[in-house]
């Protein structure tokens, strides 16, 4: 009686273990499949010309994604210039004045922006920037992406600074250092690794966004570095080429996906390594 009870328990134990291992595998599997297919179809297209040439017109072979790479870089730069300083400052405010009403309101707004569908943010940028300026532009795309980036920046800064011990701030203030200098020269440097990691992850988040760019950056077959003109971006190019009827464009879409994925993966790795390497020991 007792014996069989124990056997049953051991069996149940093993079954449960097997089940959770299986479920864990089923989480990893999609990632490997994605990596596998994108690499399989994407890597064949990639060569020097692909990375440095402009897209070819329909019917011509070859062509590249140089304008999309530059366009993505411009969009990320515009978004970062807007969202990083603003996000860090708002994060400092939230970490310093945690319990004020205004902090509560700010936190709520940030969460709402975080949860807003990206297409809606695209439409907002269209109404705010594209309509008054009268044309699609990298600037409007950058603004849309900045709105998406902002909540990540605010939250990661706040989380990082909340972990800073109060004793550090007191040490600085007790030396007669003013409050702004304490924030800029003691608190921020100590939180540098966390804030930098947050920035990298935020860039990773916006690098692959398509929806907010559909009616802002719009896409363009030309190389354009003017931020007031429409630009192409990697996700937009994937979207446009993959939905086209031409097989050679499909191949380019795979290639562009591969480049985009590689970029985001590298960013994530850098963030992981950076988090460890630049961590401040208290």
């Amino acid at each position, binding site marked *: 009686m007792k014996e069989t009870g124990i056997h049953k328990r051991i069996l149940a134990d093993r079954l449960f273990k097997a089940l959770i291992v299986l479920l864990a595998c089923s989480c990893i599997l999609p990632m490997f499949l994605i990596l596998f297919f994108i690499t399989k179809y994407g890597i064949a297209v990639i060569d020097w010309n692909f990375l440095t040439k402009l897209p070819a017109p329909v019917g011509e072979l070859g062509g590249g994604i140089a304008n999309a790479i530059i366009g993505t870089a411009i969009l990320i730069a515009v978004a970062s210039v807007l969202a990083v300083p603003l996000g860090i400052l708002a994060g400092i405010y939230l970490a310093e004045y945690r319990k004020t009403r205004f902090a509560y309101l700010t936190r709520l707004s940030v969460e709402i922006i975080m949860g807003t569908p990206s297409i809606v943010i695209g439409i907002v940028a269209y109404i705010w920037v594209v309509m008054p300026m009268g044309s699609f532009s990298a600037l409007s795309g950058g603004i849309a992406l900045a709105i998406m980036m902002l909540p990540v920046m605010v939250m990661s800064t706040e989380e990082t600074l909340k972990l800073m*011990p109060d*004793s*550090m701030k*007191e*040490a*600085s*203030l*007790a*030396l*007669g*250092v*003013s409050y702004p*200098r*304490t924030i800029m*020269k*003691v608190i921020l*440097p*100590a939180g*540098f690794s966390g804030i930098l990691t947050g920035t990298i992850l935020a860039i990773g988040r916006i690098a692959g966004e398509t929806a907010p760019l559909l009616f802002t950056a719009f896409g363009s077959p030309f190389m354009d570095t003017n931020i007031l003109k429409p630009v192409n971006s990697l996700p937009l190019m994937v979207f446009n080429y993959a939905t086209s009827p031409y097989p050679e464009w499909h191949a380019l879409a795979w290639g562009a996906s591969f480049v985009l994925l590689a970029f985001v993966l590298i960013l994530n790795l850098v963030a992981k390594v950076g988090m460890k390497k630049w961590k*401040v*020991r*208290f």
Partner: protein
Amino acid sequence: MESTVLRTEHFGAGFDDNQVLKDINIVIPRNMITAIMGPSGCGKTTLIRCMNRMHELIPSANVTGRILLEEENVFDIDPIIVRRKIGMVFQRPNPFPTMSIYDNVAAGYNLNGIRISKSDKDSIVEESLRKAALWGEVKDSLHRKGTFLSGGQQQRLCIARALAMRPEILLLDEPTSALDPKSTSHIEELVVQLKNAVTIIQVTHNIPQAARISDFTAFIYLGELVEFGLTEKLFTVPKDKRTEEYLKGKFG
């Protein structure tokens, strides 16, 4: 007798409705060690945090009465100036984690944007580390992070950091409570040596420590100054019954 560097007049402090200190009148003599002792929660830390205006950093904090530094009310002086004149060392060592030992000592100058020549800075750092009895141990590793030092060394680094600003008064808030006995005796010896250079006010709930190192002792109980006087007298012939009971270990 000796001159007075700081005194409080009918001084009280608290948070919102919670009155922590009541009618404190204390006279701190120059170049002496004054110990402030009392049971936990009696307000001794609040008292010294008022002296360099750290108390008011807490939003609900309030104060009444005056604290006179060289006959000038500290509440009429910019807190930044007060804190440069009255240095502070905290309960737990808190060197700046991003800075080297050298930069920690020079932090008061670097962070405040006070420009001094490299050679002046070098000599201030060396002088401060020597005063804090740390120079010998760290002179070859000045550019390592301060957080790699042991707890006792970190606390002496914090003392050096406070001394570098050449304050008139050094406030020590139970500086040895987080340290082992060896580091504690190190700090005690150091404090005794330091009194030639700076007036020291040390908070402690360690009765023997107050007896060992201080010249004057204040006993605070439930936010009131019960007794203040020469350490020798207060420990041998206490005037107040509560002091006697505290020293005998009946409460606290």
